[in-house]
């Protein structure tokens, strides 16, 4: 088969497959919910459904450029029979395992910046612990209400936000200079080295307190918030922001994960298939990334997030 013919087949089949996945996820979730209300399913059937479900989430998450954790918690807590405590615990571990596997190559290439990450993560991890404790002490309906509001807000921010690939920061602030936060990375797109520095560091630190708190409270990987703060507030290049966000996430989610572990909100039976499904899905998604129109998938995922957020809101009102 010629390369052009193969490319044509790819271009037709892959979007069709992804469209199918996006339709299957709500359909499968609704079916899961109906089964949940009706006959009791064997535990191992739930595990298979969870694995397949997170596998599909992993594929679309990476193509849409969102973290798996932010999709996992609202959707799984809405449609699966597990208590939201265990879903949040699993969500943190899904985000953490993804960050740990992606971290090494990003650091080696110099895309993730250790000093930038450490400066923000120290304060973020402390607020993440507090967020986890507050979140686990709250009644379920309150968590669903706040989660619903947060997810609807996130989908709105994702819909509106425009990244800046190469912000030009002329005057770095005094704190970033004192902390030696600057760097250089090789940009594969431009085929040249890019120097960068940041500004508004104190504002960034304050925002990372809020982000850490939310990540701990809801068990979300906080890439959706880390990246805009690094990129749009601090002025780090987009590629550095994405890579450093992964590194910050590994520290903040570790801190919160320990609170969930000590509060008994982590069940291996739920967490492990979620981690495995999401990791396999993201690997497949990464391979499909260059072959699909990512903006279309991204818009569909934002819509899916908004629906999951509204569903959490309705659940909080007992509807």
């Amino acid at each position: 088969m010629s390369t052009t013919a193969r490319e044509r087949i790819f271009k037709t089949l892959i979007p069709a497959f992804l469209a199918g996945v996006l339709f299957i996820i709500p359909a499968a979730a609704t079916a899961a919910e109906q089964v949940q209300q009706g006959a009791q399913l064997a535990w191992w059937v739930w595990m298979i459904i969870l694995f397949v479900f997170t596998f599909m989430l992993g594929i679309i998450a990476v193509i849409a450029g969102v973290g798996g954790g932010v999709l996992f918690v609202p959707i799984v807590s809405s449609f699966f029979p597990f208590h939201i405590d265990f879903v949040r615990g699993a969500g943190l571990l899904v985000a953490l395992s993804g960050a740990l596997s992606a971290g090494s190559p990003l650091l080696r290439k110099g895309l993730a910046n250790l000093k930038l990450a450490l400066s923000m993560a120290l304060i973020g991890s402390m607020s993440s612990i507090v967020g986890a404790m507050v979140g686990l002490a709250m009644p379920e309906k309150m968590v669903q209400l706040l989660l619903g509001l947060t997810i609807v807000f996130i989908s709105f921010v994702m819909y509106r936000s425009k990244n800046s690939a190469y912000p030009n920061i002329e005057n770095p602030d005094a704190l970033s200079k004192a902390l030696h936060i600057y760097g250089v990375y090789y940009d594969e797109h431009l085929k040249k080295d890019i120097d960068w520095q940041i500004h508004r560091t104190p504002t960034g630190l304050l925002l990372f307190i809020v982000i850490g708190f939310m990540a701990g409270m809801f068990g979300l990987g906080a890439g959706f918030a880390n990246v805009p703060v690094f990129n749009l507030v601090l002025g780090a290049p987009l590629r550095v922001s994405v890579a450093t966000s992964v590194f910050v996430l590994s520290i903040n989610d570790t801190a919160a994960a320990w609170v969930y572990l000590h509060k008994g909100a982590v069940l291996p039976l739920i967490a492990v298939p979620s981690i495995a499904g999401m990791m396999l899905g993201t690997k497949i998604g990464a391979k499909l990334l260059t072959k699909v129109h990512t903006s279309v998938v991204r818009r569909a995922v934002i819509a899916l997030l908004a629906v999951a957020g509204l569903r959490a809101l309705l659940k909080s009102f007992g509807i």
Partner: protein
Amino acid sequence: MKEAVHANRVQLDYAAVLGVCSTIGMLFIAAGYLIYLSGFLPSAAPASEVAMHWHLKASEFHKAVQVPSGWNWVTDLGRGDVLSYASINYLALVTVICLSWIVPSFIREKDRIYTVMTILQVAVLLFAAAGIVSGGH
């Protein structure tokens, strides 16, 4: 222009230890779960019992089902579910191991600010891991 590596020595040290630790973590998690589900080792609570109660809040769940939480599994490693839980605890320790690993690297570089910051970060994570604030076991 040819691609150049711009990561500094400390960053490369972190990347190296993270690569090894995360690979071990994934293998450990897969092996622990397979042992748990296969019934190769007895479990503190069978999966079917866990499934009967997983709709409960974590605090109520642990009153009904005896499964590991926090560090209470350490003396009971011969059980399948405990092994699977231990693998998750290991995953939550990987960042602590990596950060501790780079403290000597920062000291060698005479980078006082980041030596202190990394030690503080390790202390925060150990504080959480010890369960001091979350009523750990």
